[in-house]
C-alpha cells in the first residue's frame, strides 16, 4: 500500500464494506457491527494519515487509472480536500457507533440493508470530497442522494412521503447541476476542474457562461437546502431513523457547501463571481441573511426537538453560504471553519437526540420534562452543543461565528452581521427553552423535599453515550485548536486570490 494511495483506500474500504455487509449481514446479524466499525476505523486512520502528509508535504493531484488529466478523471488531495476527508470519516465513525445501537432497535431484520446504504453514502461523500472532475461530482452526488432517499424511507410513519418529496427535489437539483455542466461542456469541451479553470477566463463572459454558473449553483443550493430552496429538508431529516440522521444531518449539507466552494473557486474564479458580477454577490448575501432570520424564526415555532434542529441546519447553511459570498478572507475562512464546526455541532446534537429518543421515546418538548435528572450526561453534552450553537467560547461555534462576523463587518454587510447576531439570540432562546423544560421536574414528582432524589438515573446505552461525549469534547477541543487549524490548514485551503 503505497502512502500516496491512502486517500483511495479511505474511499474504497467503505464501498467494499458495503458489499460485505450486504452479503454477510443477511446471514448473521452479528457480522454487521464488526465490519462497519472496522471499515470506518480503517478509513478514518487512512484519512488522518493523508491529512498529516498533506500538512507536511503539501497537497497533490492523483490521476485515476494513470490517464493524465484532462483525459482521465483526476482527484485533488489538497488541504481543503483532506481536511474534509478527515471530517467525513471522523464523523462517520463516531456516528456509526451510535447508529449500530439505535438501528438494532429500530430495524431488526433490515439492519444489513441499512448499513449497506450507510457505507455507500460514506463512500460517496469521500468521493465528492476528493474529485476534481465536474461530471464525476454529478454521479457521486446522486449516489449520496439515492442512499439518503433509501435511509429516509427506512424511517417510521410518513417517512416514505418525505422521502418521495426529497427524491423530486433532489432530482431537480441534480438535473439543474447536470444542465449547468452541459452548458459548460458545450462551451469548453472539458470536464476537468483545473482544465475548466484554465479555459473559462479565455472565454468571453457571456450569457452561456452565466447560465451554466447559475444552474450549477442553484442545483447545489437545492441540494444543500439554501433558503428559499429548503422546503424539503425539515420533513426529510426529521422522519429519518435516528441512526441515519446522525450521519446525514451533519454531513450532507456540509459536503454540498464544500462542493459550492470548489465550484466557485476551482472552476470559476473569485474574479468571475465577485468582480464581474458584483451585484449578484449582494443579492446572495442578502438571501443568506434572510434565510438565517427566517429559518431561526421558523425554528422558534417548533414543538419537537428534532424538527427544531432541522430548521437550525437551514439557518447554518445560510451562515456558510453567506460567509463564502462575503468575498473576503475572513468570511471564507469562517465559512470553511464553520463547515467543520457545524458538522461537529450537528453531530453532537443529533447524537444527543438519538440518545434521548432511545429513552424518552418521543421528542416533543413535553416528553423532555425532567430529563436532566434521568440522563445527566446526555443533557450535559446537549448543553455543550447548545453553547456552541449560541456561540459561547471556548466551544468551536464561537470562533467560526467570530470569523464570519469579522468578514461581514469588513465587507460592510450589516444585514448579514445583524442576522448572525439575531440567530445567536434565537439559538439561545431555543436551547434555553429545551434546557429549562428538561431541568425542571415533571409535574407528577413531589413538590419539595428529598422525595425526588429517588428518581432513578436512566442513561442511554453506553454505545450511544460514548460517541456523544466524544463529540461534545471535540467541540471544545476544536474550539481551542482554532488558531492552529486556521494557521496551518485553512490558510492553505483558501483559493488563489484570497
Amino acid at each position, binding site marked *: 500500500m503505497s502512502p500516496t494511495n491512502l486517500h483511495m483506500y479511505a474511499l474504497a474500504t467503505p464501498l467494499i464494506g458495503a458489499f460485505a455487509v450486504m452479503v454477510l449481514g443477511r446471514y448473521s446479524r452479528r457480522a454487521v457491527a464488526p465490519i462497519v466499525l472496522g471499515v470506518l476505523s480503517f478509513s478514518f486512520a487512512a484519512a488522518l494519515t493523508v491529512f498529516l502528509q498533506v500538512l507536511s508535504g503539501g497537497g497533490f493531484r492523483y490521476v485515476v487509472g494513470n490517464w493524465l488529466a484532462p483525459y482521465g478523471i483526476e482527484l485533488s488531495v489538497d488541504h481543503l480536500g483532506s481536511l474534509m476527508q478527515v471530517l467525513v470519516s471522523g464523523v462517520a465513525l463516531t456516528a456509526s457507533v451510535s447508529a449500530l445501537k439505535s438501528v438494532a432497535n429500530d430495524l431488526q431484520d433490515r439492519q444489513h440493508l441499512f448499513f449497506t446504504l450507510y457505507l455507500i453514502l460514506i463512500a460517496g461523500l469521500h468521493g465528492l470530497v476528493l474529485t476534481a472532475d465536474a461530471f464525476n461530482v454529478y454521479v457521486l452526488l*446522486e449516489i449520496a442522494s439515492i442512499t439518503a432517499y433509501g435511509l429516509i424511507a427506512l424511517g417510521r410513519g410518513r417517512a416514505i412521503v418525505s422521502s418521495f418529496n426529497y427524491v*423530486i427535489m433532489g432530482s431537480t437539483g441534480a438535473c439543474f447541476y447536470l444542465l449547468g455542466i*452541459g452548458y459548460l461542456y458545450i462551451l469548453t469541451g472539458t470536464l476537468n476542474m483545473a482544465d475548466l479553470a484554465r479555459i473559462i477566463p479565455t472565454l468571453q463572459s457571456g450569457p452561456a457562461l452565466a447560465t451554466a454558473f447559475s444552474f450549477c449553483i442553484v442545483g447545489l443550493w437545492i441540494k444543500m437546502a439554501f433558503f428559499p430552496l429548503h422546503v424539503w429538508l425539515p420533513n426529510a431529516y426529521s422522519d429519518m431513523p435516528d441512526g441515519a440522521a446522525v450521519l446525514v444531518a451533519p454531513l450532507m449539507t456540509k459536503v454540498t457547501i464544500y462542493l459550492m466552494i470548489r465550484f466557485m473557486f476551482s472552476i470559476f474564479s473569485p474574479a468571475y463571481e465577485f468582480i464581474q458580477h458584483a451585484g449578484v454577490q449582494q443579492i446572495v448575501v442578502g438571501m443568506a441573511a434572510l434565510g438565517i432570520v427566517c429559518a431561526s424564526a421558523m425554528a422558534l415555532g417548533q414543538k419537537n426537538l428534532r424538527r427544531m434542529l432541522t430548521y437550525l441546519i437551514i439557518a447554518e447553511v445560510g451562515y456558510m453560504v453567506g460567509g463564502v459570498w462575503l468575498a473576503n478572507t475572513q468570511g471564507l475562512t469562517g465559512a470553511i471553519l464553520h463547515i467543520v464546526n457545524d458538522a461537529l455541532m450537528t453531530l453532537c446534537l443529533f447524537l444527543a437526540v438519538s440518545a434521548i429518543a432511545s429513552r424518552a421515546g418521543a421528542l416533543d418538548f413535553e416528553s423532555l420534562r425532567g430529563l436532566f435528572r434521568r440522563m445527566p450526561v446526555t443533557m450535559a453534552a446537549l448543553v455543550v452543543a447548545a453553547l456552541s450553537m449560541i456561540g459561547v467560547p471556548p466551544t468551536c461555534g464561537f470562533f467560526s461565528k467570530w470569523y464570519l462576523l469579522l468578514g461581514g463587518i469588513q465587507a460592510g454587510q450589516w444585514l448579514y452581521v445583524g442576522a448572525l447576531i439575531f440567530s445567536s439570540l434565537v439559538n439561545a432562546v431555543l436551547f434555553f427553552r429545551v434546557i429549562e423544560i428538561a431541568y425542571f421536574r415533571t409535574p407528577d414528582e413531589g413538590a419539595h423535599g428529598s422525595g425526588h432524589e429517588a428518581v432513578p438515573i436512566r442513561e442511554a446505552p453506553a454505545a450511544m453515550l460514548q460517541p456523544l461525549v466524544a463529540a461534545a469534547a471535540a467541540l471544545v477541543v476544536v474550539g481551542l485548536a482554532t488558531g492552529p487549524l486556521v494557521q496551518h490548514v485553512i490558510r492553505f485551503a483558501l483559493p488563489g486570490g484570497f
Partner: protein
Amino acid sequence: MDAILTEIIAKYNYWIYVVLMMIGFYAMIGKNNLVKKLLGMNIFQTAIILMFISAGVKKGGLIPIIDKQAALEHGVNSALINNPVPHVLMLTAIVVSVSVTGVALALMQRIYRRYGTLEENEILEKMDR
C-alpha cells in the same frame, strides 16, 4: 432578419430541448399527482440527455467506431467522427435516471398502499388525520 434566421437554424435543436425541459420541470414542481411528477422528472432528464447528445454531433460525422486496421495504418481524422464523450456521460446519466425512477416508483407503491391515493393534497389530508 437573416441573422435571426441563421440563429434559429443553428440553435433550434437546443431550443426544442429547453421547451421539453420546461414541460418536465413544470410537471415536477407544479403537478399534484405523484406519477405526473415522476413523469416530469423523466422528461426533464430526457431533455438533458438530448441536449448533451446533440452537442456531440459533427456535420457529416460518423459513429465513433474506428476501423482498427485503418487506424493503425493511417491514423484517424477526428473531425469526421462524432464526439464520443457526451454519449459516455449520458450512458451514466441514463443509469442514474433509471435508478432514481426505480426508487421513486418503489416509494410510490408504498405510498399508494398506505394512503390509497397518489394525489399529493389527499395524502397530506390523510397524513394530518
